[in-house]
């Protein structure tokens, strides 16, 4: 018996003779009878869920009017589907069909309703959260290390600059020390000559005078005018000019309006800036002398004054000049 005959019977589309024969057949044949019952259940379920379409729907609907029992079956089918849906949601029943087979079980793991999937999702969220915290901590630590590195590099630069300044200062001091040693050696030689020969008061006099000057209006007080007593034997004056409020690297110096030095390097020592120069003693005059410092554009930066007194006997007053 094929499906077409079964549908013809269920849709009441057989002749009386065909129907009588078909009834005898399914009464005698269990397989045919349950094939009929199963097909009717499928049609009724599909109709109850609105899944019948086209000719099948119209053929089925014609039988609803003539088969009272079919109307009851449709009502029961709707309730059965409600029951199945309720059981599926409320008790989360895993039907036997879903419960068997490896592939369905694997598929079940990845459905949103599966407890395994939900557990895995929660675990994944927890792992991601922990990872995020760790990454945030590492990121902050990295930022801190980078900041520390930058600070270390800055300190390195500062220290390098300080070392270079110290080396430069040391070089200057070394030069001064060498000069002093040379003068000591000359003095010792002179002393030895004096002891051996009659005294010549002029031969023992120093040939270099030292002069350290600060700006005239230093700290706003009264002008400090240093006095320099020049022995007759002094041929040159080693001069250091302390400069304030200037950022230039090189300067020129005028003595009483005459240019005596150009392109002098301004040095920094212990956060103080200064220039040093040697002035021939013949350039200075008795009485007040003015030293003016200019930048490369000719702008006057500082002005210094000192007083010179030429003597026949070597002496320096106690106010600041020394030999």
């Amino acid at each position, binding site marked *: 018996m094929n499906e077409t005959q079964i549908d013809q019977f269920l849709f009441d589309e057989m002749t009386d003779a065909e129907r009588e024969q078909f009834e005898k057949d399914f*009464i005698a044949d269990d397989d045919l009878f349950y094939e009929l019952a199963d097909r009717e259940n499928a049609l009724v379920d599909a109709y109850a869920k609105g899944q019948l379409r086209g000719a099948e729907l119209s053929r089925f609907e014609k039988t609803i009017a*003539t088969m009272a029992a079919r109307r009851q079956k*449709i*009502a029961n089918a709707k309730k059965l589907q409600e*029951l199945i849906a309720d059981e599926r949601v409320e008790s989360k029943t895993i039907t036997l*069909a879903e*419960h068997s087979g490896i592939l369905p079980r694997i598929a079940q793991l990845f459905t949103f309703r599966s407890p395994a999937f939900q557990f895995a999702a929660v675990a994944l969220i927890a792992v991601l959260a922990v990872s995020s915290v760790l990454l945030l901590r590492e990121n902050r630590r990295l930022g801190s290390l980078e900041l520390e590195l930058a600070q270390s590099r800055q300190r390195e630069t500062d220290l390098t600059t300080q070392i270079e300044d110290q080396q430069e200062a040391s070089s200057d001091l070394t030069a001064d020390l060498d000069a002093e040693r040379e003068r000591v050696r000359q003095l010792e030689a002179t002393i030895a000559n004096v002891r051996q020969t009659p005294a010549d008061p002029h031969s023992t006099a120093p040939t270099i005078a030292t002069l350290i000057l600060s700006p005239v209006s230093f700290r706003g007080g009264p002008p400090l005018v240093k006095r320099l007593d020049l022995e007759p034997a002094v041929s040159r004056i080693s001069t250091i000019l302390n400069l304030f409020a200037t950022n230039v690297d090189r300067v020129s110096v005028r003595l009483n309006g005459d240019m005596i030095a150009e392109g002098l390097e301004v040095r920094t020592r212990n956060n103080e800036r200064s220039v040093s120069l040697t002035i021939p003693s013949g350039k200075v005059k008795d009485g007040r002398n003015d030293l003016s410092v200019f930048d490369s554009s000719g702008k006057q930066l500082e002005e210094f004054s000192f007083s010179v007194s030429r003597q026949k006997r070597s002496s320096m007053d106690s106010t600041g000049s020394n030999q």
Partner: protein
Amino acid sequence: MSALTASSFQMLLERLDPDPSVAAEKYEDLRIKIVHLLCWRGCLESHADDLADTTLDRIAGKLAAGELVENVNAFAAGVARFVWLEHSRKNKADAVGDDLPETPVQADIGSLDGDEPRMRCMRRCFAAKFDDDDQRLVLGYYDTDAGEKTKNARKRLAESLGLSLNALKVRACRLRIRLESCINDCVNAVTNSPSADTTKQEAV
């Protein structure tokens, strides 16, 4: 109409199968088939139960009367048709002069949707008539939301129960027949009146 006697009933069972237990099963199967035959001819299931009993009683009476019956099943189909025709004619005669239509009314499926007693009866019968295995089988077999995968799902269900697909189908159909019969009886008892969608006349 023949009255059923113990001897005639015994004769019917012996014709169905010499083994009394098998005969009892076959008797029940035959009764179910007769009920369906009547329903597919347009009879209400509640009436079909009574008419099926009438049919079986007549068969037993014929056998007891010595009528020669070569094929009980084929004979039962013929008797059932006559019983249904008698029932239909009687209903038509009863309806003469009444306001009831001679032909069945159009199906009012919508009125069945809000049938809360039916849902309560469904739950009651589902819990009372089936054990856990039967419940799982019904839920699994008739959960057709899987669409195209229904066949595969049923195949796996059959394998899990150690049944062939055909045996699974027979078992599911029997359970559904039992469930629907219980529901219809329950609804009739709850409403204490014939279903609203029935007419006194049922189509022939």
